[in-house]
């Protein structure tokens, strides 16, 4: 994905991983998909962001009014609140590779080869 946004560039080659990560996972009840998503997220964060992350799990069935703030349509949705910019990842996070790309932890693999 795009790595050309100005912030990372000024930071040189310093990876996003240096910063603190604030993540929010939206679910609707304890559905299998939600549980899968949460366990997938925990695993990925432990692998890549150990000690530098915080996960908020928001159950929309309990707090439906929160769905408007982050424009939640799909369940489950993972929102990266920090570092900026905000990113949204939908699905049960079972495709680890895509999650890493989506969270900007790994550059996107272009069809022609590595960038």
């Amino acid at each position, binding site marked *: 994905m795009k790595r050309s946004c100005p912030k990372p560039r000024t930071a040189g080659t310093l990876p996003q991983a240096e910063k603190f990560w604030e993540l929010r996972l939206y679910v609707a009840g304890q559905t299998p998909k939600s549980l899968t998503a949460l366990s997938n997220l925990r695993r990925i964060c432990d692998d890549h962001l150990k000690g530098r992350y915080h996960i908020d799990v928001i159950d929309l069935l309990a707090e439906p*009014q929160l769905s408007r703030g982050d424009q939640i349509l799909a369940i489950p949705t993972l929102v990266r609140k920090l570092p900026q910019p905000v990113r949204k*990842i*939908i699905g049960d996070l079972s495709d680890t590779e895509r999650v890493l790309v989506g969270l900007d932890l790994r550059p996107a693999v272009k069809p022609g080869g590595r960038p």
Partner: protein
Amino acid sequence: MKTARPRRSRPPSRLPKCPTGIQGLDEITGGGLPRGRPTLVCGGAGCGKTLFAAEFLVRGVVQFNEPGVFMTFEETAVELRANVASLGFDLASLERQEKILIDHVHVERSEIHETGDYDLEGLFVRLNLAIDSIGAKRVVLDTLEALFAGLPNEAILRAELRRLFRWLKDKGVTAIITAERGREQLTRHGMEEYVSDCVILLDHRVNNQIATRHLRVVKYRGALHGTNEFPFLIGEKGISVLPITSLALNHKVPEGRIPTGIPRLDAMLGGRGFFRGSSILLTGTPGTGKTIVSANFAQAAGRRGERVLFVSFEESPDQLIRNMLSIGLRLEPLVRRGLLRFHSARPSLYGLEMHLATLFKEIATFRPHIVIVDPVTSLMEAGTDFEGKAMVTRLIDYLKAQQITSLFTSLTQGGHALQQSEASMSSLMDAWLLLQDFEGNGERNRVLYVLKARGMAHSNQIREFLISNRGIDLVDAYIGPSGVLTGSARAAQDSREQAEALTRQQEAGRRKQELQRHRASLERQIDGLKSEHEAGTDELRQIDEQVGVQTRLLSAERTELGRLRQADVPTVPVSRRIRQTKSAQHSP
């Protein structure tokens, strides 16, 4: 309206309906949209889907006290408020009263990464919250198709949409879902698969460079509905669908008569002018004075204190006033007194429907006694023939229902096919005046005649129509052996007739003299012949006498000879022989 009755009084087999409050739509659908079910409204870009949906919600609140949720996937709440404000809907105040809730759902594909299985429960939660928070009975989703652009997995999306519509039905809300028009199917993403109860198609079609909106109820499960395509328009008070068929021919007719402003024309119309509340057609080729007759009519009405709406598609009000002043018609004081109002617009400014709507609005606010449309033909050119006629029908019906007298001028192309070209309009009109011009002798003259006037004895005569700086006058046209003569030809004809009479007199005198001369010569000849005849008679007598003398001499001679020869045979008397020879001579 039917739907105003409570639902319980209907037979249970009937589909309960939810009135939209949109003018005309409830007539077409027999009471509104199916209650508690989703309705699909589809159409191309800019055909009014969002406004349609917004009006459904606003009228639901204002007229039927049914709160509504507007879930928008394209426009933001701010944009939506501004857009529908142009129709006079104050969404913000309805939102403050918690009657309407606008929820903008932002879907942006570039922000979304798909990483496995998901569903749209978030949308359901959100919609549910919105519906419950204001107790909504109506829901608009505008347009769900944005999801197809935003969410990559179409399989999941379709499954979720199916679930959504099921859920909306279970929730018991009357919903409108808008969708883009597709190429081969009604909607681009086949939304009609999911919404099968009622499908309404909006269409914005351009004909001769002028756009007209149309609405059609494609499908309405379990209910009778008008299947035609109905023109609709978006005016300042929202959408109005104009079903032609809903207008009935049962308007009341007022009794009075109104003068035309031209005394001779009144005389032609049974002496008292047109019927009040009738529709009058005034046809004529260019420059025959249609506008002048109309302006005269307007002025006469204004002087009686009646209000006149003058709809001009050719001239601006100022130009009209100035031009009419040149023939002594003073319209300006009437305008100042508020008795005469002009409505000038180019016919091509907008489609027929919009023209009709603005006219209706003008009429509703000004409440005129007389409406003049000059000329109605250029208005009709703004659409197809059929649309044009339908529009004029609607306009006339509307005016008749209001008991407004209407005068339509109609511009016809040159030539003599006037009756033919206007025949279609004629059936709508109660009176029809024809203005025509005659060309000849290096000038053009106008004539006027009454082609038809329902319900009154009217003149069959052609009148010459004179326009001077003192106004209009009608004079008898000359009708003689060589046709109708007007203008200077009419004057010339008068003197020509006198000359002809004189010539005829002289001619007769000459012929008389000649005959007398002839008679005299004949008499002379008769005299000559007579004397000749007499001379012949004399000669005959002389001949007879001579013959007698000779015969006598001969017989005397014979007798003498016989006597001398002493013959004993008696001789044939000479007189008989002479008679025989005479008859032989005469007989050949």
